[in-house]
């Protein structure tokens, strides 16, 4: 009996122990699989899987023919692991010979490839080691181009690594450099790069891969959480060939006559597309430090000046439109014209009372004649027309830092400026605004908003940033045609005829020699410009050339030859048929 009880007790104890063990395992199982399941899974995942940031490429900026103005490329930072820097053995694959190379030899080869000083490289490593003997990362040379990186990599130095970094290159250098802008180390700094960053910027993605205990990536474990999205391609209206030509032309002439700076605009009449927006001095976005800080923006959009007589074309188109005068209207241009107080308006040349038609006043660019005629328009009317031509407001381009210039409204203007404003003094405009106004005159009185960007093509096939503005009528077609006809007289009858005429084409142009406001009035500095269009019988292109504060030649004759070379090049490039009809002559005097 006692034996049986003992057996039972033993059995019970065994069962108890088994149950206890099973229960313990059960609790542990629930704990791992249910209670802490998520946390543990994450922990294990984190221990194995390595996150990798995926970078999209920044979008290109291309001209109207697709020539790349700004391109995304990769550069390489050559890095070193200072604590492992020591002499190393290399194996020659062909001979099977093992040679030992010293640190100095390795650094000399790297320095020779990258154009650095080997001693400086060694000093960099030593200073890193002095700061932290276990240092694992230091930059040797930053931002080397791909083929140099390949050469350095092929040296096979075991403690030298490379990091790929996204970079930007501008294959055309200074061509359109001021428009395109440039990048700093942390992002865009100027121009379209900054202004339209929302189009160009890429959005990064993320992925992870898993690695084994030895740190090697396990094949097939790469998981992309989010695909990176490349930036959009920005399409410009610029023709880089014409842009270069215009830049070259104003650079040569600007340097010759000692101007402070110069601009040249080429605008297509039909749609207000900016074919070229050249300025000098210009910035090479590849080498920003090589240019003066003042030359890194776009003066075409950001630097308003008193344009002078080129504004007369606008005033006359306005006066024809308002019906206060006609091209054959007979006026007397006095020697000087009194406005308010002791203020008087005179002409660039001394004359008595001139018996001129309105056409003659514009063709001879008489300030006094313009003043007489302008007074026939109300203050509101003058302001209204000038603003409808786009003065005093930004152009449709919306360039970064674009200036509005100034046209004073009837409420704030004085009686003198209300007259001088009509011939471009006492008001300011940018080169872009002048070109836009001339586009309206050339286009039969309809001003199309200036366009620099035709669109941004995104990676997903959508297009944004398409031009939005609608063309607006500024003056009647008849008034615009009459103005163009008179501007043609400037070229065929004026004293700059030999500088402006293009064989085979009828050209219409207006010159301007503006005085520059300085402290205490107008000095002897000038801003000279020629604005015009061709062919006059059916204008296709507007060209505006401006030189600011030239030293050796202070008349618009300085700008005329440049106007002609640029216009000729544009007409050739776009195969504009030569004029076939004869011009109608306007009576200029009576």
């Amino acid at each position: 009996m006692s034996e049986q009880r003992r057996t039972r007790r033993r059995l019970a104890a065994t069962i108890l122990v088994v149950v206890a063990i099973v229960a313990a395992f059960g609790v542990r199982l629930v704990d791992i699989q249910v209670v802490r399941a998520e946390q543990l899974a994450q922990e294990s995942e984190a221990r194995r899987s390595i996150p990798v940031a995926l970078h999209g490429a920044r979008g290109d900026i291309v001209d109207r023919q697709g020539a790349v103005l700004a391109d995304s490329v990769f550069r390489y930072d050559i890095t070193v692991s200072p604590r492992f820097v020591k002499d190393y053995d290399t194996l020659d694959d062909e001979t099977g010979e093992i040679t030992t190379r010293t640190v100095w030899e390795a650094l000399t080869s790297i320095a020779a490839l990258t154009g650095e000083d080997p001693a400086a490289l060694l000093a960099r490593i030593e200073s890193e080691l002095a700061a932290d003997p276990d240092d694992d990362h230091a930059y040797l040379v930053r931002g080397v181009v791909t083929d140099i990186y390949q050469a350095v990599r092929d040296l096979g130095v075991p403690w030298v690594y490379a990091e790929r970094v996204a970079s930007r290159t501008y294959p055309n250098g200074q061509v359109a450099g001021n428009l395109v802008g440039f990048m700093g180390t942390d992002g865009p700094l100027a121009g379209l790069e900054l202004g339209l960053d929302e189009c160009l910027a890429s959005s990064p993605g993320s992925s992870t891969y898993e690695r084994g205990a030895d740190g090697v990536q396990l094949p097939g474990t790469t998981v992309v959480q989010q695909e990176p999205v490349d930036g959009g391609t920005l399409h410009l209206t610029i023709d880089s060939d014409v842009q270069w030509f215009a830049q070259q032309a104003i650079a040569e002439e600007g340097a010759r006559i000692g101007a402070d700076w110069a601009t040249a605009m080429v605008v297509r009449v039909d749609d207000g597309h900016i074919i070229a927006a050249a300025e000098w001095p210009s910035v090479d976005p590849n080498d920003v430090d090589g240019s003066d800080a003042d030359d890194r923006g776009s003066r075409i959009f950001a630097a308003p000046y008193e344009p002078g007589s080129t504004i007369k074309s606008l005033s006359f188109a306005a006066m024809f439109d308002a019906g206060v005068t006609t091209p054959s209207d007979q006026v007397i241009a006095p020697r000087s014209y009194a406005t308010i107080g002791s203020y008087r308006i005179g002409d660039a040349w001394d004359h008595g009372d001139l018996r001129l038609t309105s056409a003659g006043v514009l063709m001879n660019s008489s300030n006094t004649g313009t003043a007489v005629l302008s007074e026939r328009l109300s203050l509101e009317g003058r302001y209204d027309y000038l603003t409808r031509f786009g003065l005093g407001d930004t152009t449709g381009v919306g360039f970064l830092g674009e200036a509005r210039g100034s046209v004073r409204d009837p409420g704030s203007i004085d009686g003198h400026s209300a007259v001088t404003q009509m011939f471009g003094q006492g008001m300011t405009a940018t080169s872009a605004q002048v070109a836009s106004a001339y586009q309206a005159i050339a286009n039969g009185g309809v001003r199309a908003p200036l366009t620099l960007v035709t669109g941004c093509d995104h990676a997903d096939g959508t297009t944004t940033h398409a031009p939005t503005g609608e063309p607006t009528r500024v003056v009647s077609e008849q008034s615009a045609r009459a103005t163009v006809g008179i501007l043609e007289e400037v070229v065929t009858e004026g004293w700059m005829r030999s500088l402006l005429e293009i064989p085979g084409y009828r050209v219409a142009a207006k010159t301007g020699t503006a005085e520059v406001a300085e402290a205490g009035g107008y000095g002897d500095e000038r801003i000279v410009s020629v604005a015009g269009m061709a062919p006059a019988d059916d204008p296709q292109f507007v060209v505006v050339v401006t030189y600011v504060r030239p030293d050796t030649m202070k008349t618009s004759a300085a700008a005329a030859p440049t106007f002609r070379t640029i216009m000729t090049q544009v007409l050739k490039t776009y195969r504009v048929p030569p004029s076939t009809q004869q011009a109608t002559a306007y009576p200029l005097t009576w």
Partner: protein
Amino acid sequence: MSAAQAFVPVTAEQVAQAAPRRSAPFLAPVIAPRESRRRRPRIVYATVAVVGVFAILVTQLLLSIALSEGAYRISALATQASELDRDAQVLVESLDALRSPQHLAANAEALGMVSNASPAYLQLADATVLGAPVAAEAGGGLLGGRDTMIGNVLLADMALATPASGGGASSVASTPPVPGSLASQPAQPGLAGSLPSPVTR
């Protein structure tokens, strides 16, 4: 119970009969009557099982060798692809710099090319000459012998093309005129109002 009896196999029935009588034997060896007569283990099954296990192991080994072989190939090809990408980028970069307008113009000048300041066209539809044709002057290139003033640091170490032997404008003048690009578009000459224009890009 005799000693001989102790070696007689005990059947289940006997145990059952004995049970009420005897209290002690809680567990007793039982030999099923037929089991004893049944087979000794046959070697063929063991062989099949062992061979099967080995076959599976070998297959698995070969498979993983093949897989890792593939992984190495993928890795090698990926390396090659990225290397080719790099080469392509280098070439595109230098091509874009080479075809920048300032470089093209300087090269054209170096080869003795000149441009005509007076544009004129031959209209193929009716053989009329449009514009005022004037012979281009020697040295009338876009740059006219002047330096390009539009800098590009990317072009710093790119040499200009050198003219063929005989050099300069004279050798260009002596070559027979090539049909110009204006004539190179037979599809368009019928268009009267517009001038045929070459597609340059």
